[in-house]
């Protein structure tokens, strides 16, 4: 019996050993903004979990609404790489899968920083990611290690 099952256990062990932690990701060019989330300070890992759709509610129990750069946004690749560790195409498929599973609501996609900012301002519970944003916004969240 054991000899049969080694064929299933060996690849498993190989994968688990090979499944190393992803490299540290660079958020330096990203500005995360949010509206009425219950707090304005998050750790990077907390915010990454929200942006991956792991949480349905903010600390104040408002529904999480994600506002992400569309594939036409010039910073889409940076967000895909920094937040998800994936390509733009893989992130798009990731969200198709999350929504299809029924475990997360679809993000809202916007083509520019201005559109993301405008949407987040108008929707309590919304969080957005701006790329190479040089302006100032009262909605900016503080991210700490």
């Amino acid at each position, binding site marked *: 019996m054991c*000899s*049969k099952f080694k*064929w*299933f256990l060996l*690849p*498993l062990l190989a*994968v*688990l050993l*090979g*499944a190393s*932690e*992803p490299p540290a990701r660079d958020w330096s060019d990203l500005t995360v903004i949010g509206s009425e989330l219950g707090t304005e300070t998050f750790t990077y890992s907390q915010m990454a*979990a929200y942006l*991956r759709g*792991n*949480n*349905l*509610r903010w600390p104040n*129990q*408002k*529904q999480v609404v994600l506002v992400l750069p569309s594939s036409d946004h010039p910073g889409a690749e940076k967000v895909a790489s920094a937040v998800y*560790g*994936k*390509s*733009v*195409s*893989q992130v*798009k*498929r990731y969200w*198709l*899968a999350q*929504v*299809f*599973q*029924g*475990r997360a*609501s*679809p993000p*809202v996609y916007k083509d520019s920083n201005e559109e993301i900012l405008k949407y987040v301002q108008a929707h309590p519970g919304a969080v957005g990611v701006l790329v190479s944003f040089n302006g100032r916004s009262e909605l900016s969240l503080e991210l700490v290690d």
Partner: protein
Amino acid sequence: MKAAQLSLVCLALSSAGILSAQRSIQVNAYGHFDYEWSRLEFNAPEENSVGTIVIGEHDLFVTGNINDRLSFLGEVTVTGSGTSSTGFQASIERARLKYNYKGNHSILFGKMHTAINYWNDVYHHGRLFFPTIDRPLNFKFFLPVHATGLRAQGQNLGKLNFGYDLQVANSGASSDVRHSDGLNFSYNASVHIRPKDGMRIMVGYNYDVLPNNTVGMHFHAGDSHSSHNHDFSGEVRMSQLHSSIAYFGNKFEFLNEFAYIQTNTDTLGKANNFTNYTYLGYRLNDKIVPYAMFDFIRMSANELHAKRCQALKYAIGMRWEIDAQVNLKFQLERYGRFEGIDDVAPGIRKYEVKFQLAYVL
């Protein structure tokens, strides 16, 4: 059939109308085309070779928020049918309401995919997401794919991203569209953790009673499916212990699904059946994933719910993710005897070459 087609069109039109009024509605259309060529043996006569282009399952998927707490998800498919005059039939595969009452805890009601192992809980009818062309063998025999009932669900709780799915639903004997005699429910309890991105480890238990060994559309595509044992009409009590490990990282992809299924009848007593599916893929780049797959099911001599068989298949293949919304899979597979696993029925010893083009709009 006409009523089903009409409902499909109505759903599409109403969804399109809602789409213009509210931004929170999302409508997608999933579909796939397959080409399959099979041959019983390499040295078999030419007439045993079969090659066919198949119009696969086409799927209208709708999801949206009714309010801040309540959401709806619906999935209607049109697929090939040997009993329909047009060759196709429509089916409501999922229709469920979800009430997110606190944090990541929700109550769901309606028709859902049963949280039995990773594949059925995650991929549903979306061929675009399948890592291989075929579903695991257990789908043909013992897996109650859907259930209509009530479920408590939690997800991403604590550091290990713990999740639970506790479900009471109609028995697999139910058709969901007519009342059946007696009061029969099925029960499913599944828990999982996601210790890191892309990884999920899951275990669970499912129990169901089929009073006359008849099944609705939840088991192996209904009564008409060739894997169902139509010759037995006694009560079947079915327990299913299932576990799965999935890891889909940036390079390695791995999925193992195991199930121990015990069916119990007054005629032959307990039948202990096992099945295991293993997938291993390696992502060469953003688009190309070569993979291997190994799948088997072993049934007891006492098995009465399904037609007894010992099935085995293994395959190599490649997935080309052309775009986020389109992929093409190629698979070369063999059904049949393998050293150490015997009693494979001669009829299923064959080779297959398959292509699948899957997409979403």
